[in-house]
């Protein structure tokens, strides 16, 4: 039970030395990896995407070369300095081999960290967090910048879900009236939603003490005025505050480009690159203790459709940002885009299981929780040389 404020204090913002803060961005809608990190060295890419392909580096509107084979979509230009500085690694032809082309089924499976429905219903991050000892009693240990808790956090102890941190709370005279205490009493355990109510009331107290609105971007960072930019601005405020934040989840929406992909993905990638690069600038040296993971539920078909778009496919792309990332490389055992090399004859194969990436992340940067429990049934490999430490 929560008692009128006296027992609710912001926890100290100390994270154990073996852990980074994780910022997990889910690209909802199946982001197209092939027009994002472009395999311009694979001639089948141009054969199968004659209308929508991104030209090779050096051509008008061409990709930004990374390593002589892959190039960044030009809208990702702001990420190139981060890549060059070794703070960004890209994993291509990755994903989870769940075999589903349904957005909703696949998002559920990826977030649960399983490849079939029989697995545990909790989320992979939820299991990870429940395995780790934490001295933190902060309501802000696990946060979704969203109205709702994502599946990936299911199983963690009362994740917060807040779509706008500046909007979360009661005015002082309402607090002074004892109103929160009455709510705490009405929602005492085991009344339905008692745990949710207690977390909400604790969060309000912590937020009030943290005064986030006074925390402004550092190092000249300018967050774009977009949905993702607004969310990452708040992520930055949380990390720089006294709140003991450890895992933050948020969504980047709108990646389901069945038609007119070149136009739509330009906007989506620009929003992603502008927001993440602003965050990277804002965090400065703190990026040494932060990992940003960007991933999606599955990739898109190799061949374009008649609407200058792509239908649902298999392998895609993941991004990893941070000082602890073995960056400046595209990690990929490239399967090739010739028909004989495609999944079911039409999709980019998965050659690096996303669980390999996540297992290494857990082991080297997030405190070493048991990958066998977080990803039941996954036999490895448990590393792809993506992280330092």
């Amino acid at each position, binding site marked *: 039970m929560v008692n009128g404020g006296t027992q609710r204090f912001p926890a100290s913002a100390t994270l154990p030395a073996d852990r980074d803060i994780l910022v997990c961005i*889910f690209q909802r*809608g199946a982001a197209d990896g092939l027009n994002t990190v472009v395999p311009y060295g694979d001639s089948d890419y141009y054969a199968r995407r004659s209308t929508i392909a991104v030209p090779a580096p050096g051509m008008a509107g061409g990709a930004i070369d990374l390593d002589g084979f892959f190039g960044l979509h030009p809208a990702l230009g702001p990420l190139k300095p981060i890549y060059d500085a070794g703070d960004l690694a890209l994993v291509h032809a990755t994903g989870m081999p769940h075999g589903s*082309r*349904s*957005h*909703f*089924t696949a*998002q*559920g499976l990826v*977030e*649960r960290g399983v490849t079939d429905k029989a697995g545990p219903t909790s989320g992979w991050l939820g299991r990870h967090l429940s395995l780790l000892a934490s001295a933190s009693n902060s309501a802000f240990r696990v946060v979704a910048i*969203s*109205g*709702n*808790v*994502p*599946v*990936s956090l*299911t199983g963690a102890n009362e994740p*917060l*879900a*807040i*779509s*706008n941190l*500046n*909007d*979360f*709370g*009661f*005015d002082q*005279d*309402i607090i002074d*009236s*004892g*109103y929160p205490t*009455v709510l705490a*009493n*009405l*929602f005492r355990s*085991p*009344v*339905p*939603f008692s745990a*949710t*109510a207690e*977390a*909400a009331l604790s969060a*309000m107290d912590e937020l009030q003490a943290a005064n986030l609105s006074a925390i402004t971007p550092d190092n000249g960072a300018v967050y774009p005025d977009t*949905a993702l930019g607004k969310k990452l601005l708040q992520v930055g405020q949380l990390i720089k505050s006294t709140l003991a934040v450890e895992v933050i989840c948020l*969504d980047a*929406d*709108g990646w389901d480009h*069945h*038609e007119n992909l070149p136009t739509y993905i330009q*906007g989506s990638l620009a929003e992603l690159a502008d927001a993440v690069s602003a965050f990277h600038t804002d965090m400065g040296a703190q990026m040494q203790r932060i990992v940003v993971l960007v991933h999606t539920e599955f990739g898109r078909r190799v061949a*374009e459709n*008649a*609407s200058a*778009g792509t239908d*649902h496919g298999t392998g895609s792309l993941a991004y990893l940002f941070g000082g602890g990332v073995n960056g400046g490389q595209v990690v990929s055992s490239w399967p090739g885009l010739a028909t004989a090399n495609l999944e079911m004859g039409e999709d980019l194969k998965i050659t690096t299981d996303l669980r390999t990436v996540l297992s290494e992340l857990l082991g080297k940067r997030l405190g070493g929780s048991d990958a066998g429990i977080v990803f039941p049934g996954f036999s490895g490999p448990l590393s792809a040389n993506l992280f330092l430490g």
Partner: protein
Amino acid sequence: MIKPDPRELSTILDRLCRRRDFLKLFGKGLGYSAVASTLTACGGGGGGSDPIQQPPAPVIPQASAGYTVLKRTSFGARRDALATLETLGIDAYLEQQLDYTRIDDGDLEASIQTLFPLTTQSPAQLVGGFPDNIAGVAQQMIAAVQYRQIFSRRQLYEVMVEFWTDHFNIHLLNGLGPTLKPEDDRQVIRTHALGNFRDLLHASAKSPSMLFYLDNFLNQAAAPNENYARELMELHTLGVDGGYSESDVKEVARCFTGWSIRFPGDPGGEYGTFVFVPALHDNNAKVVLQQAVPAGGGQSDGEQVLDFLATHPSTARFIATKLCRRFIRDNPDAASIDAVAAAFTQSSGDIKAALRALFATEAFRSSSDLKLCRPSEYLAGVIRALAPDTPYPTDNGQLFLFAQAIMGQVPYYWPTPDGYPDTQSYWDSTGGLLNRWRLSFLSFANLIPSIDVIQLDYADLLNGADTLAGIVDALTDSILMRPLSDTDRAYLLDWLVSEYGQAADAALPLGTPEAVAPLVTAVLLSSAYFQLR
């Protein structure tokens, strides 16, 4: 094709929400610590398919059977509706609600024609004002939903309109969507909401709004677009486990090649009407769900597929499960699903027959408080409990839109084709609960001159109560319409006694009960009592 950047479109509603200064609107001390509202797409892709933990058995006194039925089949209990239900009995009340065309809603529908004329226009009319009319269409479509959910006497019908709007979800601000969705709403959803599922499915498949939203209008023999084919089976009929394969997705997509819509200047009809283009259709034979679709079928290929799907046992089960989830609980019992699926099949997809079977189940009749109401029910429920006879607000629904936006359920604004989640595990988040608490402060509307959108009079709700105990009991009766536990009543009273320095049963000075009532009301609206059904 004009398909504006979706990120630009999202700012339209954002601006609508900011147009008024809601901090001033709600005044100091009413919980509006900040005014910035952002319309988020609200989170997790989940909430739908995973098994859900059932809440522990409620430790609060059970509501009456009549109240529970009313709460589950409406957008919130009104005292007069509860009285009607208790007079008629549950069965007769539900039959009356099912026979909705005989419930006179003429005054409300006439007001909608006057207040929200864009909702009544055809695509050809709307495209004339496009894209300048996007914000106007959005505002009027959303306001019409609010208006009907709060004020319609056809509450069960409006519940089913919302159910099918989610089932056949189409994001309003999707390219040409604002010119197309208003007609889909009238001709597909509202026409068939309590009709026959096969008719509803055919209407949706040929709806220009759906053809556009799921890209079927671009689906051509040369390179089929599978978007509609997949969602048709996964979301509209069989369900993801309904027994179809990736090959079926491709074959169904081929069956629908050539289905399209007319654009301005196209021959044979006006903009925004369905057209089948034989030249773009794949006329070879197909096999769908092990059934042959012979070569040369033309438009009938797709129609045959719709008939296969409408009558498939997986569809009956999928629709039955979703109906039970809506009216009973997140994880409905097998017996209820079986009964509803059987009625659905035996009646060839009659939606009323399916609902009658559901309303007869043991689970529906003898349980209560198994589910958190959704934001739409919360908002309409607050108005229906506090100010059932308030006129439609003069702000064109902007206050209500603000409420819907912070709670994450703006009508026609769910971005993906699966519709707003119908599981409490999605809605019972910390942020969700806090926003309901904030909106409970609508109970102060009568004290703040700038809130002219709800006319709220506590004299009626207080029913003459003039002590703190009397106020708690009167408002419990008139707003909750169900009993508080002795413990909760004592908590509330102890707080009021210390806050106001008056004994629980001391007669209060004239005017004081009306001053105490808004705070007590906010507490009641914030509680689990009000939010469970």
